[in-house]
């Protein structure tokens, strides 16, 4: 059996042991996420517009991640709405910055891997770079919206008569607590994911200026920065969505 399948089975067993039904659902969301991701790539290969495919896939992937991991449906629904808003805001940042930075496709460091491959394939790699950036940020967005939404849920439950405006600042407070560790998840992800590239830079004595202008490094670094900005704007956006909903709920009750 292939190592990937066995590792997957180990993960499945552990998740069910630790999380029971919820653990199984989380595993299912991982499998479905992979399926949709691969399906999206195949659609792009058939010349469907990459950004449109990515946006549709992105909303589906957010829904899968949030609804299959959450316990409380109402919280998940609000988290989902907030995450879609964050996604749209990020897209407005990603599209112009990717056109500006021009980090699409491959760099000089990729030359060995590209041997024997035909590059002019008639698909705009700028669009592909935008799609990559959008897809890479989805996990971070989903995680942050869920953390804030469930944190605020706790507060709403314990203080049902809290003022809506107060709730907004509580959301920001919850956000402050998660930002430090989320930042680490993202940056260690970058350090780890690009370790061999950094070893390359070191071996060939790249200067800081070389690295800062290097296409391959910039492509990955920019994505981590997009995720980080996504997590930061998640804090006010999620707090705002939940506060507004809470206000409406109060009005209909009274």
């Amino acid at each position, binding site marked *: *059996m*292939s190592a*990937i399948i*066995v*590792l997957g089975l*180990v*993960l499945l067993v552990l*998740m069910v042991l630790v*999380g029971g039904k*919820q653990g199984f*659902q989380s595993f299912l969301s*991982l499998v479905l*996420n*992979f399926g949709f*991701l*691969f399906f999206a*790539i*195949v659609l792009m*290969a058939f010349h469907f517009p990459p950004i449109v495919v990515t946006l549709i896939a992105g909303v589906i992937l957010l829904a899968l991640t*949030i609804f299959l991991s959450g316990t409380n449906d109402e919280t998940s629904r609000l988290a989902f709405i907030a995450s879609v808003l964050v996604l749209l805001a990020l897209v407005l940042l990603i599209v112009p910055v990717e056109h500006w*930075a021009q980090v*699409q*496709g491959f760099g*000089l460091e990729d030359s060995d891997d590209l041997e024997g491959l035909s*590059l*002019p*394939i*008639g698909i*705009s790699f700028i669009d592909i*770079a935008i799609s*990559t950036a959008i*897809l890479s*940020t989805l*996990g*971070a967005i*989903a*995680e942050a919206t*869920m953390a804030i939404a469930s944190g605020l849920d706790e507060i709403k439950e314990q203080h049902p008569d809290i003022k809506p405006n107060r709730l907004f600042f509580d959301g920001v407070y919850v*956000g402050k607590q*998660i*930002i*430090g*560790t989320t*930042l*680490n*998840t993202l*940056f260690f*992800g970058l*350090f*780890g994911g690009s*370790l061999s*590239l950094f*070893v390359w830079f070191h071996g060939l004595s790249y200067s800081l*200026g070389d690295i800062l*202008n290097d296409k391959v490094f910039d492509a990955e670094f920019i*994505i*981590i920065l997009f995720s*980080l900005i996504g997590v*930061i704007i998640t*804090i006010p956006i999620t707090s705002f969505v939940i506060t507004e909903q809470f206000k409406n709920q109060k009005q209909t009750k009274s």
Partner: protein
Amino acid sequence: MGNLLKKFPIKMVGIFALIGVALMFFVSHDDFLYTQPIMQIQKVEELSKNKEIDTFQNVDHSYVQKLSGVITNGKHKGEHITLNNTYTDSKAMDKKYKVGQKAFVVLHGQGESTIRDAKRDTPVVFLIYLAIALMFIFLKMAGITAIGSIIINTILFMVALYFDGFNNGSNVLWIFSILAVLFSAITLWLVIGWNRQMFVTLASTVACTFLSIIISLIVFKFTHEKGIFYESMQYVTQPPRPLFLAETIIGSLGAVMDESTDIISSLFALKMERPEVSRKQLFLSGRNIGKSIMGPLINVLFFIFMGETLSMTLLFLKNGNSWGYSFSMNMSLGMVQSLISGIGIVLAVPVASGLTSFFAEKRRK
């Protein structure tokens, strides 16, 4: 809503915007800091357009443009040069230049020169600054500690790279394992402080990261690493297998730390509020907190590891390769990394809850 608007820190946003404009002006005029000659493009002329069809029936167009501009730095500053640039519709390794853009060029003498690559430090610095500014505006102090820990960790990372280059990668796994422990200790010290809670979190982070690697090594041994293609690893200048494991350790460390911190800080808070809570209750509520965050966390790394394979996978598919082969050569390593870090993240739930229920007990003054 009016109340929210009143608290909007308009002064701070104004100050950040001003600094930002100054910084952007500087970075877009920092050519004197570079030793390679930089050219600013002043005139673009489109020369020709050709239709191209490759052996896999992919249709593309290639264009030639004539660029004229002026050198902005070094001893050739002020000289005018003219050169040709070729680009395609797909722009995989080339780009279309526009008036006003800057690019690094290579001067061959006798008026001959070729364009190397775009100067892209301005957009990168813009994004770094935007992230830092947003962090300060929304998070104040929490933002400063977070950035501080990133800076210290980056310096440590460079030191580790230096030692790795020293003996040509033969100790890469040891160097980055030690680095992983140092990373966690410093980060947790900055985030939590120097106390019992920090040590419990550190123990949980380190234990789970290495446990997940050990489990994976056992799986590798019994499956003979079938389906893992180290030869598909990119940018390899050292033996790929230890480098891959080192990548996975560092990559999953942050997420395992994230999970452990969330569980342990909630449990310590619970223990503070209700000192009479039993070990078993503590363990069970740790499991409850952990199981709802583990799914989203695994997905964070999944999307980061898999997202970056998109361009190459697509290129493989368009070069007449089968779906299975394109997956194996591009996505299998990312998949293995996602799964190993997933195992670490899940293990963190019982380990963090167990360690806390064991060590949070003796909290008497």
